[in-house]
């Protein structure tokens, strides 16, 4: 079997079908058995004609990161694509509109900016779209047709994917899109002399099990439903809104309730209220919303009420860059808020682990009666992968409340001091299970108590719960474990982990003895495992998407040694190529 590993970007203006074309391409390639990872970027503004880019990596091998540079750029819009050319490889391929409606002034055409070494194929996208549909709306499908013709992609399979994408639309919409695709395909076959090396001809991928094509937000929503979520409160915010959108439709079908509140403060308040009432409850937000929720998170910890917050990070601070990815909420997620406020923080490292992390978050919040923060980011929320359909959670993950038994209820103490810090939790309405609950420091019964000994005892209890949390989390992922020594160890978290893992594997092929380490559980952190890994490494590199090296600072406190840092705030996901380059320089 021949291999292929190709990154295709479609760049257009909002409203030109850029994202739809990328979605069709991803779904078709997934159906053909290829691994795919796709990621869209689009303007934050709802109105206007901002730049949209659909980025899709297609491979016969496992994909860990989206790839920094594109092999192919399809330019649906010259103005935006001129800037996007900077992400096209030096020997990349440009597919552009060779017959636009109006002539370009000098340097206003994307092909005018191609660098030597790039291959450009001019296709009359606009003209062919008009021929097929009578207007320019089919340009995206004409471009896909050209792509299919150039790379020997199965024409019939592709048209089936287009039909499936628009199956719920009127027949005229389906026909317009299919006809546009076929116009692009035929014209290209007839008129373009192919001189690039890319071809899907003869490349077959082994038949795989049915795959789920899904992004992180969709998977979080699915996992929450599978894990018996019964209450969701939230206020829309990019990039987390999709979670609420899905749950607003699906949660009532599962007997749950979704409440759209007036702001994020109300949302977390409602979640804590529902948690207090014994419901599995969560909210989803982004950095600015999480900042508003921070004060309330202390109540979850102090009153020991389960609450789950999904924080899909975006570039900040403040409103920042809503549609750009960043990993800059680490500090606020792990230690934001007042007082000594221990909480569990999970950071899934790829799309697939968003499912596991969400199930785990609801389970841990309930079992440990505390706040759990799940850190996604714009990239994880929106990047689409084809993954095996996740197995439903085991029953023990669906009901984890440690309820009081008869003895406990004789003289019920909601905050009873226990060895593991977890006190039996009576759901309001439980006979004999009445208790006080407050944000004030309290004694075992829940009554306010400000004594030195009492505050110490309760603080110790709240922290003691975390001694056993680590045993519930998946073990850290280490790319190579059967060696005693590495020249470089790459330690990463969240969505950067895939790129770090890929970079470490690439480094091995280039003669650099490297391994990578990442952990979904970031608070409490598996410190012992981290130290053991680091002790094997001569040098440590920590790549992350924030300016100040928030995780690197955190890790340095654990490791007590120098670590090399690699920080980007470009708004784009971490690239394995950049990590590898840094490793070469170390």
């Amino acid at each position, binding site marked *: 079997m021949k291999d292929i590993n190709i990154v295709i970007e479609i760049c257009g203006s909002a409203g030109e079908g850029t994202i739809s074309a990328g979605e069709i391409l991803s779904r078709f390639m997934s159906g053909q058995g290829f691994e795919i990872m796709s990621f869209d970027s689009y303007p934050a503004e709802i109105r206007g004609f901002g730049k949209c880019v659909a980025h899709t990596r297609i491979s016969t091998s496992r994909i860990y990161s989206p790839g920094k540079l594109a092999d192919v750029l399809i330019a649906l819009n010259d103005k935006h694509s001129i800037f996007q050319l900077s992400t096209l490889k030096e020997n990349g391929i440009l597919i552009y509109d060779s017959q636009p409606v109006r002539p370009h002034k000098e340097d206003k055409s994307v092909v005018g900016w191609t660098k030597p070494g790039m291959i*450009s194929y*001019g296709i009359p996208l606009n003209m062919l779209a008009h021929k097929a549909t009578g207007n320019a709306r089919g340009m995206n499908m004409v471009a896909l047709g050209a792509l299919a013709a150039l790379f020997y992609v199965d024409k019939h399979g592709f048209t089936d994917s287009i039909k499936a994408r628009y199956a719920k639309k009127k027949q005229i919409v389906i026909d317009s899109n299919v006809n546009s695709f076929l116009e692009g395909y035929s014209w290209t076959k007839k008129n373009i002399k192919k001189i690039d090396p890319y071809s899907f001809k003869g490349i077959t991928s082994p038949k795989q099990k049915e795959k789920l094509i899904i992004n992180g937000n969709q998977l979080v929503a699915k996992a929450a439903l599978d894990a018996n979520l019964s209450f969701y409160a939230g206020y829309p915010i990019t990039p987390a809104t999709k979670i609420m959108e899905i749950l607003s439709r699906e949660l009532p079908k599962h007997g749950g309730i979704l409440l759209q509140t007036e702001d994020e403060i109300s949302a977390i308040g409602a979640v804590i209220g529902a948690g207090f009432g014994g419901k599995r409850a969560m909210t989803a937000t982004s950095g600015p919303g999480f900042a508003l929720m921070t004060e309330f998170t202390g109540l979850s910890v102090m009153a020991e009420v389960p609450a789950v917050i999904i924080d899909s990070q975006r570039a900040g601070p403040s409103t920042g860059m809503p549609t750009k990815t960043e990993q800059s909420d680490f500090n606020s997620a792990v230690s934001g808020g007042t007082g000594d406020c221990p909480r569990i923080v999970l950071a899934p490292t790829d799309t697939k682990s968003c499912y596991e992390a969400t199930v785990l978050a609801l389970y841990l919040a309930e079992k440990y009666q505390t706040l759990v923060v799940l850190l996604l980011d714009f990239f994880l929320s929106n990047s689409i992968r084809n993954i095996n359909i996740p197995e439903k959670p085991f029953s023990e993950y669906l009901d984890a409340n440690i309820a009081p038994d008869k003895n406990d209820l004789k003289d019920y103490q909601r905050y009873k001091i226990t060895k593991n810090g977890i006190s039996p939790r009576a759901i309001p309405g439980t006979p004999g299970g009445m208790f006080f609950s407050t944000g004030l420091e309290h004694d075992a019964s829940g009554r306010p108590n400000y004594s030195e000994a009492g505050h110490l005892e309760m603080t110790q209890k709240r922290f003691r719960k975390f001694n056993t949390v680590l045993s519930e989390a998946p073990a850290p992922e280490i790319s190579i474990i059967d060696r005693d020594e590495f020249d470089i160890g790459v330690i990463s978290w969240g969505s950067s982990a895939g790129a770090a893992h890929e970079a470490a594997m690439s480094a091995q092929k280039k003669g650099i003895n490297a391994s990578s380490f990442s952990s979904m559980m970031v608070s409490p952190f598996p410190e012992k495992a981290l130290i053991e890994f680091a002790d094997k490494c001569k040098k440590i590199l920590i790549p992350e998407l924030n300016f100040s090296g928030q995780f690197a600072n955190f890790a340095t406190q654990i490791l007590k040694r120098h670590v090399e840092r690699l920080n980007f705030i470009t708004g784009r996901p971490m690239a394995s190529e950049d990590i590898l380059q840094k490793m070469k320089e170390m």
Partner: protein
Amino acid sequence: MPFNDHYVIIGNGPAGNHAAIILREKDKEAKITIISDECVPYYYKPKLTDFIADEIAKEDLMVSFLDSYKAKDIRIRLGQEVERIDPESKTLFLQHMEKVNYSKLIIASGSRARLLPPMSCYANHLKFVTSYTDVIEVKEEIKKLKSFFIFGGDLVGFKFLRMLNSMDKTVTILICPNAFWPYNLTDDMLAQITESLSKFNADIIVKDDISTIDEQNGSYRVKTQKGIEKNVDMVFSFNGLNPNIEFAKGSGIDIDHGILVNEYLKTNIDGIYACGSCAQIYHPNIRSYTTSIGWPNAVVQGEVAAFNLLGDHKIMESVGRKYFDLEGVKIKTTWWEDIDDES
């Protein structure tokens, strides 16, 4: 001067590239742009057959690497075709509907494969080895296929024949007297060439012409006027070159077969020069226009055009090799000159 000059060169071959180098050497400030409809940087066309046979890699084909343009601050627009010139507004209209303005222009657009008029109805059945794009299209196919028909027989054609022989392919060649346009080979020359080619394992046909080419299930049946029939996998045409000057038609630039220039390589329009195989150069001694061939001539013409564009008055004189060896037959590269000795 509020803006720097913008020198635009149409063509990315030896004439165009050497013109650009001189322009940059002599004018450090000007904006220099090369526009070429080919997608690859400056490469050595005579080595295309070696590239097909995998005797050299793509890198070995390249004369100028991408970094060298960057170092010289020469902008190169590859894969972009000039559609027309408007000398009045000093504007080039590119095929993708972009306008490019120039201060002065050098046309070094070279040539493309010459298709004999009677063969135009079979154009879709014919393959060429004139450009990198042509070659990439057929390179892998040639390795797989067995039998080939060569129609014509210019310099590249004979080189291609040798290459196919080295690859143990079955070859038929029909030699046309006018394949080495603008020469017409005499009977004596044809006999000498035929004799020379007899050492190759090829069927040689002379004094005949193609009657029909029919496609049958991906292969071709070639019939000659004298009734010879050959079933082959691919048919190649090697009948010399035609200047690439369609974009200049209607612009007011004087054109005959190529673009007409004086001995200073200047066209009839101020600020526009032409050089290389797309140009017909006035020769005062014979009082007529000539087209020189060969890489060394193109290099010098490019340089002369650049010097003169900058205000010099250099007269184009032929240089380098004076003869081509066409399978034992010597053909002068500048046949109008009275030079007998090969230099």
